[in-house]
């Protein structure tokens, strides 16, 4: 997790033009864009998506050939306006991605954080690894990839308003589990949620068996500009991450603050 020389595949890849072949409405706030090309990526890796004339933003691979996007601002709104046949420019896959290991794994996903974990669940199933997923969202119709998680293994859901599954934060579902049954725990979602997962895992002496996919402001996505570096290790989310072991994140800025586009610290 402290590579001197970045080994990630793909950052050398020249950007390519990707024509949108299919758009799927996943939830009221998210859509999946199929890109008509299979990136040689692994779950947890991401691509930089250039919406021409607007911005260049990081998006995880939710399928080998697709990204799943939540509309939150300028660039994602511009993306939502694109139609089948329109194109974006893609660079990637970037970053390390999740490392699959063990015989039984636990996934904890919140909101659009379900995007990078879904292909991991499927890869695990393909390798006959037992998969259990805890999936959370604000409301029932915002639960992302329910079918994919269900067909990959066991699924438990939670919503803030109780419109589906458990009513409350998805992390509370952890109380009912014995974490030691899992060889590896993977999580992606709002950072407050993930830091709660790390806390629980630490309590069970399992911090070294957790992997978290971090969201930080990404500018260059090439390990050069320093925008995405985390305290106190100075590791770069874009090329040293975005996936970090819980051990690396203990006593870090994780769950406490992040930096905005100007580099200013922002409380989470």
């Amino acid at each position: 997790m402290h590579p001197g020389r970045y080994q990630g595949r793909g950052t050398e890849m020249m950007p390519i033009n990707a024509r949108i072949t299919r758009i799927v409405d996943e939830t009221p706030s998210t859509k999946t864009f199929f890109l008509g090309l299979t990136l040689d990526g692994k779950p947890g890796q991401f691509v930089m998506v250039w919406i021409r004339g607007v911005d260049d933003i990081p998006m995880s691979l939710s399928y080998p050939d697709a990204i799943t996007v939540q509309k939150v601002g300028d660039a994602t709104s511009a993306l939502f306006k694109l139609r089948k046949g329109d194109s974006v420019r893609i660079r990637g896959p970037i970053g390390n991605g999740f490392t699959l290991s063990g015989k039984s794994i636990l996934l904890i996903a919140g909101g659009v954080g379900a995007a990078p974990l879904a292909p991991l669940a499927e890869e695990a199933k393909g390798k006959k690894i037992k998969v259990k997923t805890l999936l959370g969202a604000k409301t029932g119709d915002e639960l992302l990839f329910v079918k994919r998680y269900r067909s990959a293994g066991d699924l438990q859901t939670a919503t803030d308003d109780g419109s589906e599954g458990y009513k409350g934060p998805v992390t509370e579902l952890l109380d009912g589990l014995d974490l030691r049954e899992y060889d590896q725990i993977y999580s992606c979602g709002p950072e407050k949620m993930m830091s709660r997962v790390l806390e629980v895992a630490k309590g069970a002496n399992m911090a070294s068996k957790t992997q978290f996919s971090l969201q930080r402001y990404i500018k260059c996505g090439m390990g050069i500009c320093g925008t995405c570096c985390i305290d106190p290790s100075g590791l770069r989310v874009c090329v040293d991450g975005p996936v970090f072991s819980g051990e690396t994140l203990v006593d870090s800025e994780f769950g406490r603050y992040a930096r905005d586009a100007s580099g200013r610290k922002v409380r989470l």
Partner: protein
Amino acid sequence: MDLTTDVGGLKLKNPTILAAGILGTGAASLKRVVQHGAGAVVTKSTGVSPREGHPGPVLIKTEHGFLNAMGLPNPSYHEFVRELEMAKGDVPVIASIFGSDAREFEEVALGLSKASPDAFELNLSCPHAEGYGATLGTDPRKVKEIAKTVKNAVDVPVWVKLPPLANIAEVGLAAQEGGADAVVAINTIPAMAIDVESGYPILGNKVGGLSGAAIKPVALRCVYELCAALNIDVIGVGGISSWKDAIEFIMAGATAIEIGSAVHDDINVFRNISKGIMQFLEKRRCTLDGIRGVAQK
């Protein structure tokens, strides 16, 4: 073999320095670069007020280098002063600053002085932020004025970073007259790329700056001309990624070198270059001083 280098008023354990704007947004990443062998580190350029920078893409890889238009994102010196404080440690930390005129440069320098940086590097050369940078760096009178103002305001060494110019020696002399302890050359070369699929300029800011291997011969020429003309130290930067590159700059007369884009391929580039220089000197049985400037003869 001793690589200790006195440069621009600082003592470095080796002549490799992290360039401004590269992994320099926070104390943590600066320290990580030090762990990888840098003899000193320069921070990201900081100004008077927060800037988010340009929309993306802000950095693209071209066939032979990199093109960037970051747009000087920074949280302002008010915020960055704390980061700078934490960055201080085993090796000198040089604060890169920018402003639109001498007064702004002075304000930022004074503001950051609370954190006691080991030196200041004045970014007079950012090619893609309206009103800042290169427009100042091409004007010898302004360069002299800004150098002098900051030099009078602070009590640590002041370095002046120059844009690539045909008449770079003239501007370097102005910095020297302003009291600069060293000049740093070069910043990126104004450049751009266009996406032939769509006709869009690729960088969010359309125009940006070229760095990396492509600009090495240009940077080397600038350093060569500055070394011939000035009495103060010259620090070479531009496309350095191997010990051979570093030796070229030192033979041209550079006292030390900065490394930017090359961290992309290898963040350990600082240690590797120091090692390579050491081996080269050992094989030749000579010292850094012995080869410095030999190309000037």
